[in-house]
């Protein structure tokens, strides 16, 4: 639905014809828009800041050496190169939040970050939360409140909760809903997810107190 929606939106607003008309009408100085709908042409640039394919990523406190293509997203690398399949890929276009991970403690869509962009950063996935058999307080809260239906969105929600609560431990329910609004649940289990988030904040306040 969202894919079709975005596709139709872009196609409608920038059909080739209107795009060319736009360029003609606005004169030759206008060229920055040309990156949309242009045909692919990979260049063989060797410029300052060039990167190597073999990179070391810091994931869940471990250094992981991995061979990464330039066009690979972090979500792809985590799931298919590092075997960290807790991170889910839902919409794959910065919309649903199933792929949420922490980068230097901040929740981000791993589907819309290139893996090369997180070189040198600390990446935390759902697999990095528990301490052995002991669940992270946020995970415990989600279990205690049964804050999931099918749970496909749960890893993303939990990572967003961890990042949010670490940043702001005492949000109201409304503020929490706003803070977690980048994550979607197709089962629409939002009341229980929010119960979990509020419980999680409570657990985290008491563990740090």
């Amino acid at each position: 639905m969202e894919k079709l929606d975005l596709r139709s939106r872009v196609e409608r607003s920038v059909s080739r014809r209107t795009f060319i008309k736009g360029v003609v009408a606005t004169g030759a100085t206008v060229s920055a828009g040309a990156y949309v709908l242009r045909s692919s042409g990979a260049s063989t640039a060797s410029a300052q800041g060039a990167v190597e394919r073999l990179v070391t990523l810091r994931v869940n406190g471990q250094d992981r050496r991995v061979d990464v293509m330039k066009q690979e997203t972090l979500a792809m690398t985590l799931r298919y190169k590092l075997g960290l399949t807790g991170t889910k890929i839902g919409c794959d276009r910065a919309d649903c939040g199933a792929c949420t991970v922490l980068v230097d403690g901040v929740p981000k869509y791993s589907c819309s970050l290139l893996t090369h962009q997180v070189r040198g950063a600390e990446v935390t996935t759902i697999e990095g939360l528990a301490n052995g058999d002991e669940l992270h307080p946020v995970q415990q809260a989600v279990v205690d409140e049964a804050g999931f239906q099918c749970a496909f969105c749960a890893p993303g929600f939990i990572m967003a909760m961890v990042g949010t609560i670490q940043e702001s431990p005492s949000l109201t329910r409304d503020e929490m809903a706003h803070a977690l609004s980048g994550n979607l649940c197709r089962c629409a289990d939002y009341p229980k997810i929010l119960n979990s988030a509020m419980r999680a904040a409570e657990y985290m306040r008491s563990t740090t107190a």
Partner: protein
Amino acid sequence: MFPSRFDYVAPDTVEEVLATLAQHGDEAKILAGGQSLIPLMKLRFASPGLLVDVNRVPGLGFVEETGEHLRVGTLTRNTELERSALLKSGYPVMADAAPMISDPLVRNRGTIGGSLAHADPAGDWGSVMLALGAEVVIKSSTDERTIPVSELLVNTFTTSLDPTEMITEIRVPKTPARSGGSYLKMERRVGDFATVATAVHLTLDNGTIKRAGIGLTAVGSKNLQASAAEDALAGAEPTAEAFEEAARLAAEASSPSSDVRGSAEYKKAMVRTFVRRGLDKALELARG
């Protein structure tokens, strides 16, 4: 999904970024927050040959008032703008807009300069900057220029930037004491593109309107400036009649298309309603 193949560089300085752009021209594309660009590349709507990642360049993210301007660094994340006390106290139209941009995860990455350079007619910052009469500072390896945002935004996804240029900074004129503003946005759900949004900025002088700025989101081929409405308000008394007339003129200036978010007629009607409400809210703030 994978984007088409591209080359990727991540320079450490603005000079290196500009030198790379100068060398590669329209093959190259700057990667800032990437929350529009990367999805567009994965859908194969955009296939730049070289991505120039500017996220490792220090000093491009800041919000500060100096002399005549509020200066905002091009790489300032929307989350930082959302939290800025400076915007909350002096630039209400920006403070209103920041938390309404897409969703929190996008705001953690997305940048103000990236939003302006992307020139999506449904983007929020363009309208806000039109309302405020803001300028952008643009650099290339050989030149530096400052142009109004109204001259930056040309058409859908199209700006007057040369492929060798980069926006480095946004300059908003300092708001005088008796000023107010508002950003009102209708969206089907959080994170969706706007159905309609309106940016309003008002400055009063001795009870009359000294300057009014009105920008419109998602109702044309780019962020629109409602110039006729602005002109009608300049020098006028801030009355309900004047606001109603300005709202009518703004709706007239919009050219929305019918889509899943609503019919063109409905969107025009919402522009009228939102501009009127936005002016009321801005006036309240301006009167303090």
